[in-house]
């Protein structure tokens, strides 16, 4: 009896656990440790706990008070700690802290000096300039002294997240909750930069325009999110009114760096040899949103649900500085005289959402649904003319085009139970998207595809063929019709007077050739099919197979022509004993995209339809993305008289992405010529991941378990992305980063003791 009582108590009272141990990783690898906290080779502490209590677990007491404390991964940068206490049905408070270091790379090298997370990077005084004039070796042939100035920096973003969640129940009908979350981000991500042209340097050379330096873009961010809600529920309906606030703050509004690339030889030496450059960073902004959502049951079978929300998003961060001090002469002014209309954007975007859905199940075996959704992003930011100098030091006039869009969706569906074993569902969806800009200077059309209409029909069939066999199949057809007539991109050089009644350089079709349509805005026919079957062969064996295929065809002379997507999944699980299973799976996915583009035929900007000319030479590019994953998992319990449990997990994944370009017209030099390489196939981007994980839990006594885990993971990565960034093989004006491919082979061993009480 006492044993039975103990067993019952073990089930009805919470089991607290404390885990302590150590984990060893064999290799430094930013990629392997990308998210798991095992950033470097060596030992880490392994700690965690799960402790629960309160009279609410004691059935003899009239109390609903329960509390819990949780912690995991305490010895790594992926640690989590949270705790909560609540009188169930009355109130609850939860405090949480979560940490995550996202490693980006540990192989980035740069001569620029400055701390990770800072926003100002300078070159060492002995670096000197690099001559990138045409025909010169440029950055591919840095001097030994310059090469010795490169140092390695680890790129990562650290996210620290603190939260407090509270809820209070006033009575059976009314409750409230307030959630607050503070996210603190630090570190940096690499970003490409182009240097400013037209800056004179000591020694007679000038700064190279659009020379590339990969620099560390700081992520010195704080984001505060508040979610407050008041919930009411009655006999037939419920309603929730809420507020969502999100305040984003960036400690910086600009990023500055020095460029060593020059257009000619320079005898310059010392700290004043470089161009000083500045660009913007992510601006601080805020969103305040009011939300209302609820539902009403007219009857047990007729229900209405809906919601409305209004958001007010603002951004008024001061612009990045435009007057940049230089080594000699006066500071470089990025703006033309009188070219800066405001010192900050004072941007305002209003978002509106509404949805309504009615479901009816009053007719036997038939479920009818009708719904409507509306979303609008109305950008009321002022449009102004900004006259500045581009990276080539040429006068450039831009007009900001505050993009707005709205989407209205209408949906109707009918689900009918044909027999006890068969269901069929037919769904029709109509979607209308509108795009515009408010008050653009010049008043011209600013968007590709001002209007899009799409009709979609979806048919799904489900059959329970036998007691243990379930089959499903579906087909959907979608017809998207886009208004993609040549539009006038209302941005560009407004310095000239109007031509053909339009602003100079406000070219038709956004500067694209006649017939070119960006794929999100092209008319499209989409066909999708899918089917699957699950079979419970016995109470021990399950088998599942499913597949899908889709084909998109775009109505565009140039641009994306079509795309395909397919996938197959096979999985099976066999429960061969109590607490003992083995399962295997295979997943295959394939995606393809076919693109046409043209090289010549529209040499000048077009202002009227008769000026725009279709390209003469059309080339084609094909993308193929292929993925194969196989895995085997097993769990064996009850070994050694129930003291030992073994878990195994092995998987293999191979992902490849390839590009193939065809140039079917004659060129001055054959496209395959090694001085051009404008046609043919790239070596595929390949990532091959093998993983094996074995874990054993051994019960050393009633309250204690020892866990031993071994994991081996290997990544073979091959990506041409890195080639152009290596010292000696960069483009003429790109400062090397020597970024390395992130292959690794890591062994991990973890040993921990888990005490339960």
């Amino acid at each position: 009896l006492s044993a039975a009582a103990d067993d019952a108590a073990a089930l009805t009272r919470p089991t607290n656990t404390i885990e302590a141990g150590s984990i060893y990783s064999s290799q430094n690898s930013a990629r392997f440790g990308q998210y798991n906290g095992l950033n470097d080779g060596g030992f880490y502490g392994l700690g965690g706990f799960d402790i629960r209590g309160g009279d609410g677990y004691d059935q003899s007491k009239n109390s609903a008070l329960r509390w819990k404390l949780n912690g995991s991964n305490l010895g790594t940068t992926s640690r989590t700690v949270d705790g909560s206490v609540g009188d169930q049905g009355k109130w609850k408070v939860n405090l949480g802290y979560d940490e995550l270091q996202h490693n980006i790379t540990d192989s980035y090298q740069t001569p620029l000096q400055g701390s990770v997370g800072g926003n100002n990077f300078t070159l060492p005084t002995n670096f000197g300039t690099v001559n990138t004039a045409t025909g010169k070796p440029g950055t591919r042939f840095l001097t030994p002294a310059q090469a010795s100035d490169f140092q390695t920096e680890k790129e990562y973003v650290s996210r620290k997240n603190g939260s407090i969640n509270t809820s209070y129940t006033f009575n059976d009908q009314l409750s409230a909750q307030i959630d607050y979350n503070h996210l603190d981000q630090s570190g940096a991500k690499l970003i490409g930069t182009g240097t400013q042209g037209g800056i004179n340097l000591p020694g007679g050379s000038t700064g190279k325009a659009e020379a590339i330096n990969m620099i560390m873009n700081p992520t010195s961010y704080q984001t505060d999110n508040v979610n407050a809600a008041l919930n009411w529920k009655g006999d037939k309906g419920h309603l929730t009114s809420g507020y969502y606030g999100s305040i984003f703050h960036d400690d910086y509004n600009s990023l500055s760096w020095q460029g060593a690339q020059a257009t000619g030889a320079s005898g310059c030496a010392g700290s004043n040899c470089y161009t000083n450059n500045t660009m913007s960073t992510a601006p601080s902004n805020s969103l305040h949103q009011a939300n209302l959502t609820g539902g009403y049951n007219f009857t047990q079978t007729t229900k209405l649900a809906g919601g409305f929300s209004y958001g007010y998003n603002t951004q008024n961060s001061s612009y990045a500085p435009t007057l940049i001090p230089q080594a000699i002469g006066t500071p470089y002014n990025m703006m033309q005289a009188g070219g800066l209309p405001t010192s900050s954007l004072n941007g305002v975007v209003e978002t509106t959402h509404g949805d309504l859905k009615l479901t009816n199940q009053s007719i036997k075996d038939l479920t009818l649904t009708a719904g409507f959704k509306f979303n609008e992003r109305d950008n009321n930011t002022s449009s102004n003319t900004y006259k500045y100098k581009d990276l080539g030091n040429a006068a450039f006039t831009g007009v900001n085009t505050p993009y707005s869009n709205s989407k209205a969706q209408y949906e109707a569906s009918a689900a009918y139970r044909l027999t006890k074993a068969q269901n069929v569902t037919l769904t029709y969806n109509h979607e209308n998207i509108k795009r515009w800009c408010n008050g653009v200077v010049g008043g011209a059309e600013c968007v590709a595809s001002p209007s899009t209409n799409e009709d979609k029909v979806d048919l799904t069939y489900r059959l329970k063929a036998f007691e243990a066999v379930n089959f499903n199949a579906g087909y959907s057809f979608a017809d998207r019709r886009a208004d993609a007539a040549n539009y006038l991109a209302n941005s560009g050089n407004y310095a000239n007077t109007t031509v053909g009644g339009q602003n100079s350089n406000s070219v038709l079709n956004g500067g694209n050739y006649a017939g070119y349509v960006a794929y999100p805005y092209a008319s499209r026919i989409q066909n999708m099919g899918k089917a699957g079957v699950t079979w419970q062969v016995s109470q021990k064996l399950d088998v599942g197979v499913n597949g899908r295929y889709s084909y998109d065809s775009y109505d565009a002379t140039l641009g994306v022509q079509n795309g395909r997507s397919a996938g197959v999944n096979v999985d099976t699980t066999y429960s061969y004993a109590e607490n003992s299973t083995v399962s295997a799976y295979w997943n295959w996915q394939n995606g393809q995209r076919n693109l046409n583009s043209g090289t010549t035929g529209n040499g000048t900007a077009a202002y009227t339809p008769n000026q725009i000319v279709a390209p003469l030479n059309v080339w084609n590019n094909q993308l193929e993305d292929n993925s194969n994953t196989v895995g085997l998992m097993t769990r064996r319990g009850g070994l050694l008289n129930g003291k030992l449990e073994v878990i195994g997990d092995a998987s293999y994944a191979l992902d490849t992405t390839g590009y193939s370009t065809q140039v079917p017209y004659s060129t001055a030099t054959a496209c395959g010529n090694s001085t051009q390489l404008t046609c043919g196939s790239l070596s595929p981007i390949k990532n091959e991941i093998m993983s094996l994980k074995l874990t054993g839990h051994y019960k050393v006594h009633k309250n204690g378990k020892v866990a031993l885990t071994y994991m081996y993971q290997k990544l073979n990565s091959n990506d041409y992305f890195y080639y152009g960034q290596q010292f000696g093989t960069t483009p003429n004006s790109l400062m090397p980063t020597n970024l390395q491919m992130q292959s690794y082979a890591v062994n991990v061993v973890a040993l921990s003791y888990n005490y339960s009480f």
Partner: protein
Amino acid sequence: AEGVQPPAATASAKSPAQMIDRDSECTRCHDENETKPILSIYQTAHGNKADARTPSCQSCHGESVKHLASKSDAPDVIFGAKKTVYTPNKAQDQNVACLSCHEKDPKRTHWQGGAHQAADLSCTSCHVVHSAHDKVREKPTQALVCFTCHQDQKAQANKFSHHPIPEGKIACSDCHNSHGSAGPKLLVKNTVTETCYTCHAEKRGPFLWEHQPVTEDCTNCHTPHGSNITPLLKSRPPFMCDECHDGTHNSISPVAGSAAGIQGGLTGAPANPSTSFTGRACMNCHSMVHGSNDPAGALLQR
């Protein structure tokens, strides 16, 4: 659909002891010796008897008078998807038992007509109600439950570039509301961009110089569950940029092997790979693709 009624009144004014007595009609047989731990429900919110809303066994499984009289007769409501001793009730009927308490909840407002309800899923397709640790309600293990059906996403989540889902730092429910939502793909917010901005607020702007597809849908360029191309890109520049840009700049040029530079076989005297094609390609200069707030940045370069 057929006027299924909740098995029993759910709210109760009975004392914990009375509730335990009510349960004992079942637990005198379904005790600590059950293969599946029935009694561990007392560790969950459904077993906190001092909360007047807490259900008894009969609240969910029905009065099951026949079952009490004879084990060969099934209880009124059998949960689950697989046949064990008894054949489970239809998902819709199982869900009535849960929704009788949980329907009037803002997180489940859109359950009816939602993707999972339409797919005939029951609550117990994902939830293990009697377990002290319901996997789908705990961040580190939630994805394992979702991946049993969403196997494409399982494979994608383990690709070279992915959100920290396998590492248990992001849960599916951080972005999706599996109980139904007004957003696309059961997203927790009304739009894709709103959902992404909850963590990536630095992309929200509004920016002085906007990039039109960015203001509409992050998935024009990104695939959120995982990609072979970091950071979660659908394609690699310049090819990705070519899908929207043609015209008078370098996006008109066929690239092919020249994107791999000298190691790709490019020669010349001296060989000079293009900054428009190699490495970040277009984004070597046009790096502010999410928008620029620089008054001299109309071309998303600053």
